[in-house]
C-alpha cells in the first residue's frame, strides 16, 4: 500500500518535471533570484544569513546587509559598508535601489569621508582618494546597467554622477568631456517614455555644459512642443531656458519660440 503511494508520488513527480523545468527556465530568462549560494557568498554573509537565503528570503537578507551597512556608515566604517553594499547587489542584482543608493554612498558619502579623513597627509592625497571612490561608483553603476539595461534609472544615475562628481575630477576646467559623457547617458535615460520630467531637463543642461548649445536649445524646444494640456512639465523653467538660449545664441526673431516684442 505504502509502496503504491510512493510509486504514485514518484510518477507524478516525473510527470510534472516538464512544467517544473519550464518554470525554472522562465525564472532564469526573467533573471529571477540572483547569485547562487556559493561557498564564498556563504563566507561573506555568515551562517545565519546563508540559511535565511536558502529559505528563500533573499530580499530580507539583502535588506539586512543594507541596514547593517547603514550602521557602518554612521560609525564611519566605510570599507565595511562598501563590502555590504557589494554583497547586497550580488544577492539582488535586479534592485535598482541598491545600485542607485550604493553608488550614491560611494561617490558622495564615502568619497567625502575619504577626502576629509584626517589621516590624509596632503591635500593631493585627499583629492586622489576621493576621486578613487568616484571611479569606484562609476564602475559600480556600469555593472548595474549591465544587470538592468532596460530601465531609465541607472542611465540617469550615471548621467548625474558625471554631471555632479566626475565633472569636478579633472584638473583643467571647464571639463566639458565629463558633461558630454553625462549627456550621452542622460540621452539614453530620456529615450524611455517613463522617465520623469527632470531627466530631459538635466539632459539639456548637460548638453549645454558639454558645449553643444545648439543641441541643448533643441532639447528645450522639444520639451516645449509637448502637449501642454496632457503632459506635466515645469513649463516656466522651460520657457526661461528657451528665452535665455535664444538670446545667447542670437536666434533670429522670426525663428524664436518666444519672439522679442518689436520695439
Amino acid at each position, binding site marked *: 500500500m505504502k509502496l503504491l*503511494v510512493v510509486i504514485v508520488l514518484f510518477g507524478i513527480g*516525473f510527470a510534472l518535471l516538464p512544467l517544473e523545468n519550464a518554470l525554472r527556465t522562465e525564472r532564469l530568462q*526573467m533573471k*529571477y533570484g540572483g547569485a547562487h549560494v556559493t561557498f564564498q557568498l556563504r563566507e561573506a554573509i555568515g551562517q545565519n544569513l546563508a540559511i535565511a537565503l536558502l529559505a528563500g528570503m*533573499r530580499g530580507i537578507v539583502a535588506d539586512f546587509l*543594507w541596514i547593517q551597512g547603514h550602521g557602518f556608515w554612521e560609525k564611519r566604517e566605510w570599507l565595511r559598508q562598501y563590502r555590504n553594499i557589494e554583497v547586497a547587489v550580488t544577492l539582488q542584482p535586479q534592485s535598482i535601489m541598491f545600485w542607485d543608493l550604493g553608488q550614491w554612498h560611494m561617490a558622495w558619502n564615502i568619497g567625502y569621508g575619504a577626502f576629509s579623513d584626517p589621516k590624509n597627509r596632503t591635500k593631493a592625497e585627499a583629492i586622489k582618494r576621493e576621486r578613487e571612490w568616484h571611479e569606484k561608483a562609476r564602475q559600480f553603476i556600469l555593472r548595474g546597467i549591465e544587470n538592468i539595461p532596460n530601465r531609465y534609472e541607472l542611465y540617469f544615475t550615471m548621467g548625474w554622477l558625471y554631471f555632479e562628481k566626475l565633472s569636478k575630477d579633472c584638473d583643467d576646467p571647464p571639463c566639458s568631456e565629463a558633461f558630454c559623457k553625462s549627456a550621452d547617458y542622460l540621452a539614453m535615460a530620456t529615450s524611455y517614455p517613463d522617465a520623469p520630467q527632470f531627466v530631459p531637463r538635466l539632459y539639456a543642461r548637460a548638453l549645454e555644459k558639454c558645449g553643444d548649445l545648439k543641441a541643448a536649445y533643441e532639447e528645450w524646444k522639444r520639451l516645449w512642443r509637448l502637449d501642454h494640456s496632457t503632459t506635466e512639465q515645469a513649463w516656466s523653467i522651460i520657457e526661461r531656458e528657451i528665452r535665455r538660449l535664444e538670446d545667447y545664441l542670437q536666434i533670429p526673431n522670426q525663428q524664436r519660440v518666444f519672439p522679442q516684442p518689436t520695439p
Partner: protein
Amino acid sequence: MTESAIAAPSMSRERVGFSAHRVSVIAVNTLTEAVRQKVFILFLLIGLVFIALAVFFAQFTFGEQMKFIKDTCLGVISVITTLIAIVGTAQLLPSEVENRTIYTILAKPVRRFEFLLGKFCGSLLLLLLSMAAMCILFAAVLWIKEQGMIRELSQSYVGESPAAHVEAQKQIEQIQTEVLDVELVKALVADLAKATLIASVTLLVSTFSTSLVFNVVVPFMVYVVGMLRGTAAEMWGAHRLFMAVLAVFPDFGLFSIADEINLGKVVPWGHIGQIVTYGVARTLVIVVAAHLVFSRREI
C-alpha cells in the same frame, strides 16, 4: 422526556454519494476549532512586529523603506503561512483520533474521503483567514507609512512656487502607486499555493503517523529539501539519478517571487498561473495519496 421527542423524521435516501455539504460542515468545524484556540494571539504578535517595522525603518529614504517593509512583511507572511500550514495541519488527524471524536463522525454516513477533505479544507480556510488578517495589518502599515510620507512631503513644499507644488503632487502620486502596489497580490497568490502544497504534504504524513513531532518535522524537512532543489539542480544538474530522487519533492523555490515583485520586475500572470497549476497539481496528487493511506487506516 416526551414521547414525540423520539418520533423524528427518518432519512429515506438509500444512497450515500460524495457530499460537498458534509465536507464543508467538517471544514467549518475545523476552522471553528482553530479560531477558538489561541491562534489569534499569534497574529496579534505578528501585527506588533509589522507596526514596529514601520517605525524602525523610519531613518531610511522612501525607496529603501518601501523595499524593507515589503520584503519583511511578505517574508513574515510567507513564514507564518508555512508554519500555520504545517503546524495547523499536523495535529488535525492525530487529535481527532486521540480525542476519539473521529469515531462519532465516521460512524455517521460520512465517507472517509469527505472527512479527510473536510479537515484539509478547514486547514486551508484557516490559512486564508490568517493570510487575510496579516494582509490587513500589512496594508495598515503601508498606509501609515504613506500618510507619514505625504505629510512630510507637503510640509517641505510649503511656501514653494506653484511649479514645485505640481512636482510635489507628482511625487505624492508616485508614493501612492508604489504603496498600493497590486502586483503584491501575485506574491500572496504564489504564497498561498505554496502553503496549500506544504499543508497537503503534512496531511499525507499525518495519515500514517500519530506523532505530532514527526508530523511537523517531516513536512518541514520536505520543505527544506524542496527549497534547496532549485539550488541543487543548478549545482549538480548533471547527476541524473540524484535529480530523479529529488523529483519526489516539490520544488518550493519556484514559489518565491515576492523578491522579484518588490524589485519592480515584471512577473506576468501567466507565470503565476503556471506556479498555481504546479502547486495545485502536486497538492491533488498528495491529497489522493493521503486518501489511499487514510481509507485503509485503523482508528
